[in-house]
């Protein structure tokens, strides 16, 4: 018997985030042939419903209210719980994003349910759905299952492959009405610090700088390389502590944990603290003057050299290649 699974679609800058499509793919596995229902919450979100369907949702429920124009735990939990009450799901999947991390424990508490956070894989083993999730900041993994009927999981961005988009796929789109009562936390303002559109946790390519970058100015060639590759710029704790960049760019044990397809570490020594945040990247390139640097122990490819020489050359070479064979 398949399960009925709710998948929360997350919207940023008017678009669904990639992790939502990955969550639909995870939801399909959890459903084991059952129904996957996309859930969209916001002020005006129904225009995005077809995207969720084209990426694999069977139908979509929207909850729209002026009070839902920004995420708040109170507003979104009321909206999501209205859907839960209507549908009585046996599975729930969120992305393990700032929103997913914030909202999922509240929903789990309301449902008196277990919650498996930050899953990096979902597998069927017989009738059981087994999740893998990193522990000790990625230095180890655990395989974990839910003990009860309701399976609730958040999935780490960039780890579960989304399904192929099928533009011919169609499904029912309906709204769920809810009256949102008082919000106990109110967002007064949002200060955007992340300049580029590419979010570190979802980036396929990350170019990261360490102490070797030497100044905020020194991040410029890294930014250029990231732009050429359509990626994002990150940093080690050392670079943040030294004031070369904002802490929002920090990758490591404290800071963000990332798993891009390509991680280019520039002038980063490779302290355990940093490795915990990036060592599960699919391909790691290290560029460092010091041939003894620890980062070379986890790198797939290493260049011993001055990053200020190597990084611009790399940008040019990749540009040339992309121009010749896009």
């Amino acid at each position, binding site marked *: 018997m398949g399960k009925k699974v709710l998948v929360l679609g997350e919207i940023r800058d008017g678009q669904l985030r990639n992790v939502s499509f990955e969550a639909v793919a995870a939801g399909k596995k959890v459903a084991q042939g059952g129904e996957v229902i996309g859930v969209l919450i916001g002020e005006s979100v129904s225009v995005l419903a077809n995207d969720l369907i084209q990426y694999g949702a069977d139908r979509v429920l929207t909850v729209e209210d002026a009070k839902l124009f920004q995420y708040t735990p109170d507003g979104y*939990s009321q909206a999501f719980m209205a859907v839960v009450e209507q549908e009585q799901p046996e599975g729930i999947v969120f992305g393990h*994003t*700032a929103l997913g*991390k*914030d909202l999922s*424990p*509240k929903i789990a508490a*309301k449902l008196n*349910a*277990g*919650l498996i*956070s*930050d899953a990096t894989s979902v597998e069927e083993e017989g009738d059981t759905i087994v999740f893998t999730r990193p*522990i*000790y*900041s990625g*230095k*180890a*993994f*655990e*395989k*974990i299952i*839910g*003990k009860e009927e309701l399976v609730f999981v958040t999935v780490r961005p960039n780890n579960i492959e989304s399904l192929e988009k099928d533009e011919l796929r169609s499904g029912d789109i309906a709204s769920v009405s809810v009256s949102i009562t008082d919000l106990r*936390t109110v*967002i007064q303002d*949002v*200060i*955007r*610090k*992340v300049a580029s559109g590419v*979010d*570190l*946790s979802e980036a396929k*390519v990350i170019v990261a700088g360490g102490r070797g970058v030497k100044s905020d100015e020194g991040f410029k060639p890294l930014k250029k390389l990231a732009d050429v*590759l359509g990626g994002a710029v990150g940093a080690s704790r050392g670079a943040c502590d030294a004031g070369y960049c904002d*802490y*929002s*760019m*920090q990758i490591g*044990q*404290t800071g963000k944990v990332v798993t891009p*397809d390509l991680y280019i570490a520039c002038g980063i020594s490779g302290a*355990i*603290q940093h490795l*915990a945040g990036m060592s599960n990247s*699919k*391909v790691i*390139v290290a560029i460092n003057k010091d041939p003894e640097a620890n980062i070379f*122990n*986890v790198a*797939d*490819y*290493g*260049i011993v*050299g001055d990053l200020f020489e*190597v990084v611009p050359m*790399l940008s040019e*070479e990749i540009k040339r*290649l992309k121009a010749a064979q896009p």
Partner: protein
Amino acid sequence: MNIYVLMKRTFDTEEKISINGGQIEEDGAEFIINPYDEYAVEEAIQIRDAHEGEVTVVSVGSEEAGKQLRMALAMGADKAVLINTEDDLKEGDPFTTAKILVQYFKDKEVDLILAGNVAIDGGSGQVGPRVAAMLDIPYVTTITNIDIDGSNVSITRDVEGDSEMIKTSLPVLVTCQQGLNDPRYPSLPGIMKAKKKPLEELELADLDLEEDDVESKTKILDIFLPPDKSAGRILEGDLTHQVQELVSLLRSEAKVI
């Protein structure tokens, strides 16, 4: 003001992880206050010093967590509570911990609860928001600043690098993010004083809880280490050649560009 901190004892961030008999090897490892909880302890002390009141640090765990609770007392917390589950529970999950804490808070007057935004060992980040939801108080996660004026609370929250400015009111639970403060080292007089501060020890029975009430909702089947990466390739030759080779490897061998 009644200020509470939820604290967890964890592995030192620099420890190498190994597995013995399906469990993370703890022998010989160094333990610390979970780094994000350390921000919570520091912030609690600063808020108490500015607004008066009392800071109580609560930990659910084993006897050994007493050491980290003493550390929090040495930093300046007033009281510590260890809810020792060692004899009662073989396994637990974030539901277990949250349920125990909520039961502890049931007869307490709470103005502010601070916790870390995530523990660096289990990494679920669930306990804080679960506790708030079960106590039916608001919560704000990953905070980098908090100002309290009467019962009005202004908070800055880190959202994947962006900052949200939030208004709420007491009682509230917050989880702490890096950048909130620089936790102090305990001073020698602080360490001496901590020895005389109260450290209460409770067991499930003291909270009228039975093992079944807090049974975990999830089950860990296996723990394993990531596959060892074979040593990478250090490229050779002049720099131009190395860069060309790297780009060609990234495209044809690694297939990532």
